[in-house]
């Protein structure tokens, strides 16, 4: 007999890959052995968490298929169990795990697809709030505008990649046509954000990506513009800033 804290510790050890010998000793066995009964729980933990990861990383799941995803997710689950019960918040470390997962090394774009899936998941589960509109900035003097540090909407993220991850994403959608994506095509930087009833992304060019990266780092608009000009001297600040405003990418001023 084990005291409850020890029993739960032993059960946790078994579910994390231990042999469960100490546990099987205190479980009633009959024509179904204690070990077989315990395995039902271990299978459920592994499969249900792999299923939750498949829902959080749908593009990765589609790209590699059920069997490969199940093996990859299963390896991740035993190493990195959730630390809290909300499964929509489980899997932050999965993209880096995919990056180091040797069987996937022939799919070099896969970690970035996982990062895109995760960013969409985070954006979707972030609170909706008031957005910044162009009119909110009308009355601000140019000098103050330069010194303003804007916030993107909660849950926004930039996913940069050396691969055309926007086109890979499109090719992985249900109902996508069979056309191929050439990995040699230029990389993409995607701005991911929450909208009123979904999460979405938009592709940015290199200078826009530098502008948004600076803003995510709480740079002033002036410093962000300078960062973009450093990448592309012909950066069209008006058009890009207007586009971000039209996308409602910024949170309202506090």
């Amino acid at each position: 007999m084990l005291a409850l804290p020890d029993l739960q510790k032993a059960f946790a050890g078994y579910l994390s890959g231990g042999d469960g010998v100490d546990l099987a000793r205190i479980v009633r066995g009959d024509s179904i052995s204690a070990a077989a009964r315990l395995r039902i729980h271990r299978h459920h933990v592994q499969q249900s968490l792999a299923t939750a990861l498949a829902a959080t990383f749908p593009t990765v799941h589609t790209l590699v298929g059920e069997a490969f995803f199940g093996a990859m997710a299963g390896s991740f689950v035993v190493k990195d169990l959730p630390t809290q019960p909300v499964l929509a918040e489980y899997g932050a470390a999965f993209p880096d795990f995919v990056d180091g997962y040797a069987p996937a090394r022939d799919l070099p774009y896969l970690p970035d697809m996982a990062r895109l899936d995760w960013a969409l998941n985070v954006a979707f589960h972030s609170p909706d709030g008031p957005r910044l509109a162009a009119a909110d900035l009308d009355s601000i003097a140019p000098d103050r505008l330069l010194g303003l540090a804007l916030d993107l909407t909660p849950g926004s993220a930039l996913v940069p990649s050396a691969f055309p991850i926007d086109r890979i994403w499109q090719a992985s959608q249900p109902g996508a046509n069979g056309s191929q994506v050439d990995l040699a095509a230029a990389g993409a930087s995607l701005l991911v954000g929450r909208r009123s009833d979904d999460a979405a992304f938009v592709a940015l060019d290199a200078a826009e990506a530098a502008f948004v990266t600076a803003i995510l780092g709480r740079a002033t608009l002036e410093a962000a513009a300078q960062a973009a000009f450093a990448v592309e001297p012909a950066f069209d600040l008006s058009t890009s800033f207007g586009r971000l405003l039209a996308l409602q990418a910024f949170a309202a001023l506090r």
Partner: protein
Amino acid sequence: MDPVAGIGLRSPHLAEIAREKPATGFLEIHAENYLAGSPARQTIEHLRRDYEFSVHAVGLSLGSAEGLDEKHLDRVAGLIERLEPQLVSDHLSWSVAGGRYFNDLLPLPYTEESLAVVVRNVQRLQERLGRRVSIENPSCYLAFEHSILSEPEFLAEVARRSGCGLLLDANNIFVTAHNLRLDPADWLAPLPADAITEYHLAGHAVNYADGERVLIDDHGSHVSDAVLDLFGEIVRRYGKRPTLVEWDTDIPALDVLLDEARRAERVLMAGRADARAA
């Protein structure tokens, strides 16, 4: 809440329900799906105007010896303050140990020690929420050698000491009785009728372990006739309560689920399983 039948609200049906507002007794959600500020959370907050709600938590881990996760408890409390549901429940099980969350309803030994742990956790939950909660009997696949109480005796004692309600899942009773070789009628005998607040129904699957049939509580099919028979027996014995049909695996079209709830409601109203096809 009236003793009517409702459905477990699952995300594939969310948009259709928000659009069509089909008639059903009530909607039950899993708390953990709606703790973040997603569009889905906004949708159910709107649906509050049209439906009675029940909030069924799956992650409070009321059987954890280490006590409740206060951060998680705060988030669940926030949802409940917002939705003001008619019923709030979680399970007689545990899913957290050493800061790891196992996404399973893990079994407890039914001992005095476990009883003290569960009562303490249920009391803390009720104190934090400022209301009574109900505890559901889990589906069991194993039992511990050192259990000294039967599951219904244990549940009855938790209800007596903490003042909580009981949520009886007829499918879980059926699955547990089969897997642990118990008689469902014996299982029912020791329960206090006045503590029972809600019933659950779902389908189960047949699987094999060591070459023997095991019933798996997969919520993936129609409620079996045998479970509806048992449900009729429960209603005769303990009376009518709000009754939920859950379907979580191979989720069917919404109409199929709504029909299943109507079938359960016929049994509920007549207290007879043979009323299911009427």
